[in-house]
């Protein structure tokens, strides 16, 4: 009996340990896998840029490519909703060059590789004239070679870290000099000299903070701490401890997603206040405020190019139309507005070029403008970004964000920060 019991006694816990460790490893891997940038395998050119776009009929096809499943679905669904709204409006008003838009909708599933595959499918088998979508930088980086090799067009609606320009992508969200630099300008104007940087540990916050460090050095601001938390990190006790003892008089926050909630709860719990140490965030829009809990974040600042509260006739129309289609309780946000605007900008370019041809659109793009909800936007033909107005907003009790500062008119896009002496050597 004892000879039997001995190996079994030890083998049961060991088997459990092994399997549990395997589970842990498996989960860790799936978690990482979704964040790694896509490889380039989905990008091999297959047709070498011969366009199959069919413009002979009464309709023209365009592609919408957003994550409707996976971790990014929460955000990208809102972009899809506003794209649908824009397409509906354009069709109701007679279409583009007299042709009705026919939408081919795809799900990027929050995976860069899927974005690359679906982009390829939209271009070469659905023969769409242009694709609208993408959110994360890794999804954009995965799609970029596809659009370049197939010579098609992507309209990308989200603020990003800059340092990129492709003739095949139009960037309708902010680049760094339209969001991050105005955010820092605002802090400097308020007399803040000791800034603490906190961000999620991936490409956007790290690039943004590199730029902020260069800015700070040139403008007499001291960076008193720079901390990164893994995406999804929820225990901010240590980081907030470091923040508390750093002597910071302001925080620049590039955290993404859930981490913001944990960060702001911890910030409030240790007794930090908006008056003493305000936080400027660049990834929190109207949609996120509710999930974070207004009471945790009221009075804090954000830097964007659009808020639901922006006062313009175009915005009144946009907000009313959106609420009518999707419900009174749905707020509008910067990426949604940028996506909505991107469809109208494409329409403007097509009508200026009088053609759906990619080369003709690229040729005609420079100077195309649109009275967007955020204000007048203008396409820059050199870098394919658009001139946008920067707003610093304050989060109010009602969950909306109200502008407290705005730039003197639209800011010319400068993705490589060539216009700033201190930015030399970045990238």
């Amino acid at each position, binding site marked *: *009996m004892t000879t*039997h*019991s001995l190996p*079994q*006694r*030890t083998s*049961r*816990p*060991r*088997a*459990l*340990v092994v*399997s*549990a*460790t395997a*589970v*842990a490893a498996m*989960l*860790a891997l799936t*978690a990482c896998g979704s964040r790694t940038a896509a490889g380039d395998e989905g990008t091999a050119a297959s047709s070498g840029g011969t366009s199959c776009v069919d413009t002979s009929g009464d309709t023209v096809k365009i592609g919408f490519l957003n994550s409707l499943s996976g*971790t990014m*679905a*929460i955000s990208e*669904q809102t972009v899809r909703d506003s794209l649908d709204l824009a397409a509906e409006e354009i069709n109701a008003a007679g279409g583009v060059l007299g042709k009705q838009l026919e939408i081919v909708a795809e799900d990027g599933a929050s995976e860069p590789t899927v974005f690359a595959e679906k982009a390829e499918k939209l271009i070469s088998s659905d023969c769409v004239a242009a694709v609208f979508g993408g959110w994360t930088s890794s999804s954009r980086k995965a799609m970029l070679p596809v659009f370049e090799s197939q010579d098609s067009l992507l309209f990308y609606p989200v603020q990003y870290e800059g340092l990129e320009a492709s003739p095949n992508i139009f960037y309708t969200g902010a680049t760094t000099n339209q969001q991050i630099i105005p955010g820092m300008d605002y802090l400097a104007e308020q007399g803040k000299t000791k800034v603490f940087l906190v961000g999620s*540990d991936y490409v956007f916050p790290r690039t943004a903070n590199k730029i902020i460090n260069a800015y700070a050095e040139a403008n007499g601001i001291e960076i008193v701490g720079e*901390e*990164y*938390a*893994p995406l*999804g*990190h*929820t*225990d901010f*006790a*240590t*980081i907030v*401890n*470091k923040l*508390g*003892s750093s002597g910071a008089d302001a925080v620049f926050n590039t955290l993404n997603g*859930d981490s913001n*909630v*944990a960060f702001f*709860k*911890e910030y*409030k*719990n*240790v*007794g930090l206040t908006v008056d003493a140490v305000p936080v400027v965030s660049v990834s929190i829009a109207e*949609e996120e405020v*509710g*999930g*974070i*809990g207004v*009471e*945790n974040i009221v009075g804090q600042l954000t830097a964007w190019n659009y808020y639901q509260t922006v006062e313009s006739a175009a915005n009144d129309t946009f907000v009313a139309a959106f609420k009518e289609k999707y419900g009174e309780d749905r707020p509008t946000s910067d990426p949604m507005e940028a996506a909505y605007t991107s469809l109208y900008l494409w329409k403007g370019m097509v009508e200026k070029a009088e053609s759906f041809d990619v080369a003709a659109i690229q040729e005609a793009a420079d100077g195309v403008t649109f009275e967007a909800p955020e204000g007048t936007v203008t396409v820059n033909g050199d870098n394919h970004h658009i001139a946008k107005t920067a707003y610093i907003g304050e989060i109010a009790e009602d969950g909306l964000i109200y502008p407290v500062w705005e730039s003197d008119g639209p800011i010319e896009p400068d993705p490589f920060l060539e216009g700033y002496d201190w930015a030399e050597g970045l990238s």
Partner: protein
Amino acid sequence: MDALFSQLFAGLSLGSVLLLAALGLALTFGQMGVINMAHGEFIMAGAYTAFVLQLVIPDAGVSLLVALPVGFVVGGLLGLLLEVTLISRMYRRPLDTLLVTFGVALVLQQLARDIFGAPNVDVRAPAWLSGAVPFLGMNLPRTRLFILAIAILSVVVLSLVLKLTPLGRRIRATVQNRDLAETSGVSTRATDRLTFFVGSGIAGIAGVALTLLGSIGPTLGTNYIVDAFLVVVVGGIGQLKGAVIAAFSLGILQATFEYSTTASLAKVLVFVVIVAFLQVRPQGLVSVRTRSLA
């Protein structure tokens, strides 16, 4: 010196969170050998319970206190349902329980998404938990003290139940020698169900407590499930004492590493320490001595 103390507290606090997430697992995984991947979703269910109660009861303080027992029952009932329908068919087949409960976890996540929507929701903390308590020159957030208290209370109650009550004796008997317990007149089926109810109920309590720290979303549980398994494995399968020591050690270790390096690096370093530790003691900190044949 201040920094040292506040980091020690940060570590204790992190440890208490880990402990709450792992305590129920120490019972179901440690004692019963069931790898329950849906444990994280029971935590999530507890968190959503707190959210729902807050909609019903406007006073945040009252709703939180009501949520603790209700969260226990909700988590427990989900656990009981899982045990009766699926797990009872696969005791002594840990890898099968892993796959089945992983599927259940995905189903529960989607269910939560359908019921409560994809965006995260927030539970307001009551006024008496906002702010911090000054202590030796530090500011100890009240929410974290509260969670620490819940963790300690849960451990105390659970170990008293295991030590002193007839249910506890039956659980221990079943764990140590299922066949002998059965022959002695213990209904091991009933015991299994009750153990699972209690273990999953503690996950529900953990969920309620976690609403004080972060937001509530369908994937809340996946953030904690790996850490919870690590605590149980490091602590030693089948031992509450081990889970307690492991949770606080890992919490303090994480906080210490994080203070001197970065959050990402600290996680890696903690993993390295765990891997090294399991090389030396694969059975974990505290191991069961049993004559069991099972």
